[in-house]
């Protein structure tokens, strides 16, 4: 199994624990991730103000994946969603594809329909398969309970990236958490948006969205909240203290990436999975690994 890794802008700079654990997990599961330094932005940040250029930038990445002849696999849900939407849109709008190709021609690139774009977690479930992942597990995390946060662009729009999960009742992250032997808490605010999309426009509003989920999870005393997107991480880990302060309270909600939990189940040590870089540390979990 071989895929082209789309790191995007945020993960390789701010979320090295996610990248490191994703690479290690793929290594063990027999997925070869290919790097291409020319891949960068997915176009999402420009979409709200200039969607024509955002689409060209997404098409640039799709054209690069096509040149490699590999599926494009992203760690960030916004990147995965934006690129999948662009592929869908261009494949169904030949006129737009022609416009984009005229802009890509000077760069020596051509977009052609048919590039497969997935989030890494989905790729693992669809290509490696849950049973094969379970078979590689060497460590039982049965004493821990994790609360998945699916986020939005990992699930929606279902008409474009559906099929893996029902956005109203998602289970894919839960199935992977359970593969480690750990328990899953499908808490009432499971489907809440992190609010990261409005952080730039209105910090207080974004904090209200994330804060409601943090308050709920704080009271439920889960081992950690589990993420698959660096933008959700900005809200739940990066902004956790600021949000608590604004709500005049304190949170202690540990935050981890799904690939870190999978890595532990696959027998890797916390240091190999970048846990030192987690700021909202899962102390209960890490204590179990101290010798």
């Amino acid at each position, binding site marked *: 199994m071989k895929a082209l890794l789309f*790191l995007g*802008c*945020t993960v*390789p*700079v*701010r979320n*090295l624990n996610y*990248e*490191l654990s994703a*690479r290690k997990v793929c290594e063990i599961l027999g997925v070869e991730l290919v*790097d291409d*330094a*020319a891949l*960068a*932005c997915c176009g999402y*940040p*420009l*979409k*709200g*103000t*200039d*969607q*024509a*250029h955002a*689409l*060209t*930038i997404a098409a*640039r990445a799709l054209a690069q994946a096509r040149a490699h002849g590999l599926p494009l696999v992203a760690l960030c849900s916004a990147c995965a969603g934006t690129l999948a939407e662009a592929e869908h*849109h261009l494949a169904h709008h030949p006129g*737009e594809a022609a416009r984009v190709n005229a*802009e890509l021609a*000077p*760069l020596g690139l051509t977009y052609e329909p048919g590039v497969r774009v997935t989030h890494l977690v989905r790729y693992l479930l669809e290509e490696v398969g849950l049973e094969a992942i379970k078979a590689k597990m060497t460590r039982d995390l049965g004493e821990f309970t994790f609360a998945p946060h699916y986020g*939005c*662009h990992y699930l*929606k*729009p*279902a008409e474009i990236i559906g099929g893996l999960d029902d*956005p*109203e009742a998602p289970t894919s992250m839960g199935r992977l958490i359970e593969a480690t032997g750990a328990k899953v808490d499908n808490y009432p605010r499971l*489907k*809440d*948006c992190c*609010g*990261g*999309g*409005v952080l*730039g*426009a*209105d910090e207080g*509003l*974004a904090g*209200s*969205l994330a804060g409601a989920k943090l308050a709920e999870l704080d009271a439920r005393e889960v081992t950690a909240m589990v993420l698959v997107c660096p933008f959700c991480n900005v809200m739940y880990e990066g902004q956790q203290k600021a949000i608590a302060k604004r709500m005049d309270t304190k949170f202690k909600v540990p935050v981890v990436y799904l690939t870190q939990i999978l890595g532990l189940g696959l027998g890797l040590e916390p240091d190999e999975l*970048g846990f030192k870089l987690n700021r909202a540390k899962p102390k209960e979990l890490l204590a179990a690994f101290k010798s």
Partner: protein
Amino acid sequence: MRLNECDPGFKHEVAAEPGGAGIRACFACAACSARCPVGANRPDYDPRRLIRLTLLGRREEVLASPLIWLCSSCYTCGEVCPQQVRFTEVLTAIKNIASREGHAPPSAKITAELLAKQGRLLEVTDFENDKRADLGLPPVEQRPQDFQAILGLKPSEGEAGEEPR
């Protein structure tokens, strides 16, 4: 509201924008508003109301409204809409028109400039690549040329680190 202050062409303008055509199908059930997580925290943000204002042709009121920038892009509205309006995309169409008319928030200009300067949103220097090397991760690069070509932007001189002549 005065009808002669309304622009009957606005809805067609929105519908002609990529992603905007869904607005024609709205029958105002407010499923979008009922499930919107932003609206739950900011009652003045109401997807159905923005759609109605657009259909009524309240062009300036919609384009100049700070509310149109508060969508978190969570797509919840699209999943529950019985008419496939796809409000997230409709609002993207409206925001794109607003941007062309100078209503974009200042962050929008900065985003394009960062991409033209760095080829990515977050800067990558030796500092970042040293941290990556410590963890055994391959280096990442800044290749802004493609982005400058696509966006038709050159990085501004001061920011590019060149001495003004």
